[in-house]
């Protein structure tokens, strides 16, 4: 039994950052296939539980709260728009009649105010809830996977971009602390250290300082071998560009097809072909880069379980969407109480697996 229980997380057994992303994308795909509020709430609850159980004390791990707030904002915004601008759904249940703003003829088809139907509001709320659940799933991945480690797992050809992103990510917090420090220092010149003006007046020196630091960092990176490349024949270079670009276009079109529900037929093959082409491009491109990687995250049994649980959630939901379409997407017209589809719900619960199998982080281990 003790061999199965999740160990404490260390650098050696850390779960591959990609596994968290696959798990979260599985949940997100499932959320995108339904507007049943019960199922969406379940998806959010599952994501939230796993985050609560497995997040670290690192700064990025606090991002989850922000995504929850963002989700709530999206729902509210969607409903406000539906009330103010009306909804194409129609319906018969009148909630309230707002005063309508008269618009000129060329704006025919657009209206502001007027009659607010319950069906339209419910539809907007459910649609907003779906988008919110999607965002919250991405937020869960952000909170659980160390962004720097994810970049470490990128193919060699993308590594230099990855380093640039990491540097940029440390730049913003540094800038904030600079602004606060310089604003405090205004007191030493006998100037007020509160109010909006105190921010504006330190902006230029802070930016100058940031620029100086960037130049110093660039020099240090250069002196430590950043950007060493191996010679590659021009043919290989061209093939790399073609494969990578073509692959990315395929991935974009394919994911759109998958998420848009209408295009599920061509979506998956297109996505797979795109991924294959892009992978080929990146592998070829990696030949230009002479670098190696220190202690990359290993893809072990636990990573398979975490990623697999995400895939299972998505798969069950896709099957249920075909078998029981009405329960997963309850019609807004006429209004109805949503059913609870047991099969899809069981599938979503499979997403809880990471809370059991992923290594448990030691709280308070980061920072002082």
């Amino acid at each position: 039994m003790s061999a199965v229980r999740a160990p404490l997380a260390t650098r050696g057994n850390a779960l591959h950052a990609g596994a968290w992303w696959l798990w979260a994308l599985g949940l997100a795909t499932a959320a995108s296939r339904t507007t049943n509020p019960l199922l969406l709430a379940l998806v959010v609850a599952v994501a939230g539980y796993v985050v609560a159980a497995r997040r670290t004390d690192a700064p990025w791990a606090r991002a989850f709260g922000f995504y929850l707030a963002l989700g709530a904002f999206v729902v509210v915004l969607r409903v406000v728009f539906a009330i103010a601008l009306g909804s194409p759904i129609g319906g018969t249940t009148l909630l309230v009649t707002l005063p309508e703003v008269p618009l000129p003829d060329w704006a025919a088809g657009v209206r502001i105010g007027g009659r607010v139907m319950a069906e339209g509001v419910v539809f907007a709320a459910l649609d907003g809830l779906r988008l919110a659940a999607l965002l919250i799933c991405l937020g869960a991945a952000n909170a659980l996977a160390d962004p720097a480690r994810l970049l470490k797992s990128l193919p060699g050809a993308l590594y230099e971009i990855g380093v640039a992103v990491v540097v940029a990510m440390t730049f913003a917090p540094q800038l904030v602390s600079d602004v606060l420090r310089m604003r405090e220092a205004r007191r030493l010149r006998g100037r007020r250290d509160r109010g909006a003006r105190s921010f504006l007046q330190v902006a230029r020196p802070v930016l100058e300082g940031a620029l100086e630091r960037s130049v110093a960092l660039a020099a240090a990176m250069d002196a430590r071998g950043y950007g060493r490349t191996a010679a590659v024949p021009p043919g290989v270079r061209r093939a790399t560009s073609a494969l990578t670009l073509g692959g990315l276009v395929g991935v974009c079109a394919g994911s759109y097809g998958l998420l848009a529900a209408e295009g599920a037929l061509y979506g998956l093959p297109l996505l797979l072909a795109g991924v294959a082409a892009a992978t080929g491009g990146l592998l070829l491109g990696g030949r230009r880069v002479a670098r190696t990687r220190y202690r990359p995250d290993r893809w072990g049994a636990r990573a398979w379980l975490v990623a697999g649980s995400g895939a299972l959630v998505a798969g069950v939901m896709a099957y249920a969407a075909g078998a029981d379409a009405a329960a997963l997407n309850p019609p807004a017209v006429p209004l109805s109480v949503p059913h609870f589809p047991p099969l899809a719900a069981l599938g979503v619960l499979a997403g809880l697996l990471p809370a059991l199998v992923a290594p448990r982080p030691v709280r308070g281990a980061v920072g002082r």
Partner: protein
Amino acid sequence: MIRFEDVSVTYADAAAPALSGVDLTVEEGELCLLVGPSGVGKSTLLNAVCGLVPHFTGGTLRGRVTVAGRDTRTHPPRDLADVVGTVGQDPLAHFVTSTVEDELAYGMESLGVPRDTMRRRVEETLDLLGLADLRDRPLATLSGGQRQRVAIGSVLTPHPRVLVLDEPTSALDPAAAEEVLAVLQRLVHDLGTTVLMAEHRLERVVQYADRVLLLPAPGEPPVLGDPAAVLARSPVRPPVVALAGLAGWEPPPLSVRDARRRAAGLRGRLDGLRPAPAASPDGGAALLDVRGLTVRRGRAEVLRDVGLVVRPGETVALMGRNGAGKTTLLRTLMGMHAPAAGSVTLADGLVPHRAEPAALLRHAGLVPQDPRDLLYEETVAAECAAADADAGAAPGACAALVARLLPEVRREAHPRDLSEGQRLALALAVVLTAAPPALLLDEPTRGLDYAAKERLAGVLRELADEGHCVLLATHDVELAADLASRVVVLADGEVVADGPTAEVVVGSPSFAPQVAKVLAPGPWLTVAQVAGALRGVGGGVRDDVRGGAS
């Protein structure tokens, strides 16, 4: 190992070359110390070794620089990364990743070192530098000495044959500096690494150097040779060498141990003499009055039950290791932290954290650790005008101070283009414009050469004579011995010692200045005191002995 063949460097739109006529060879396995006053091109010379000059900085390099047989003309810095490891003045600016272990591996990753080798070398380096307990720590949470060690470790892992360091111990307290120097010593002796390093704090490093490379003045060709011989003619020299000049020891000793062996005669001559007594402050109302002060940041108590009274005419040195709470105490005196318990009052009973900034400025002034935090304008002249307006002083008051402290600086120069010492002097002038009775300085000698330090000491002495009080937080024991009448030592937020400089400093192995160590148990702290006593004169000795920390 490092070879300069008739090298000169001229930066774009500079009138004179930053470096000229450099023709020298640094042998393998040598620790070569680069010394010289500020602004003679020490950093330029160091960066020419790793190829950052001219590949990164621009400018024109004439002649040829070769490192381990590679010409920097044809090898950009990244292609030299496997033979030269470079650490600049600020280790934080050097870090690319966010944790200790990743930082150690970064250079090897760039060079494509195989994975197993990387793993082994990271473990070895963690042990070599005593960083094993810190391996998972975020770099931002490390102390100054730890950062410097990580920075050195991060360039050591690719096993470079040459290590280039720019002022590795300047920002460190004496104990942390010894940590770093012990590591360098070990690298040179055990691994045969060639080390070329620049350092202003000669008293810390010169005894470890095999040879000294002196850049005497801008544009003059360098002198490379035996440390004792070179330092005897150097415009910058540590107190032991200055003492040797006084006592007539030839060649001069470089370490306290060597000096002590030869000092028996000098000790005999000084027997029965006392240093001229420092002018004792004439009492008066306290300008800084701290009682039972406790300061919290978050939930941590950074200062606990601290008491300190400073009166007019006193100069007090605040010492203690990095993170002991020195900066927090100075900031609390400026009202930047509110006390959790106890009281802080300035002259006229002003309570700093409740005072308006404009009123506070006339009671106390702080020059922060990084003077750049205090400078907002685009020219020195504009900075002066703003300072006059801030302080409500007569127009031209600040400009007059700048003219005295920084005679060589043009009015239209950008404050960020000044050297570290010049920037400090400008910030000091800005603060002094309001003539605050209490002057606080946080680590004022970082990056200052002996001449700049001497100018600073002169100004501070004058202020104390005029009835200001000066409180300076510093790691520089020589400066503290020279200036301060009293030393307060902080440890973990508590005052552990408070008394006359001679009493506090002489007993402590890390805070004692070199002269005190050489002449113990005599009560001597500075070369100037010894010189004065030998000539039988009490005062007025300061002008005669140049060099040293006096």
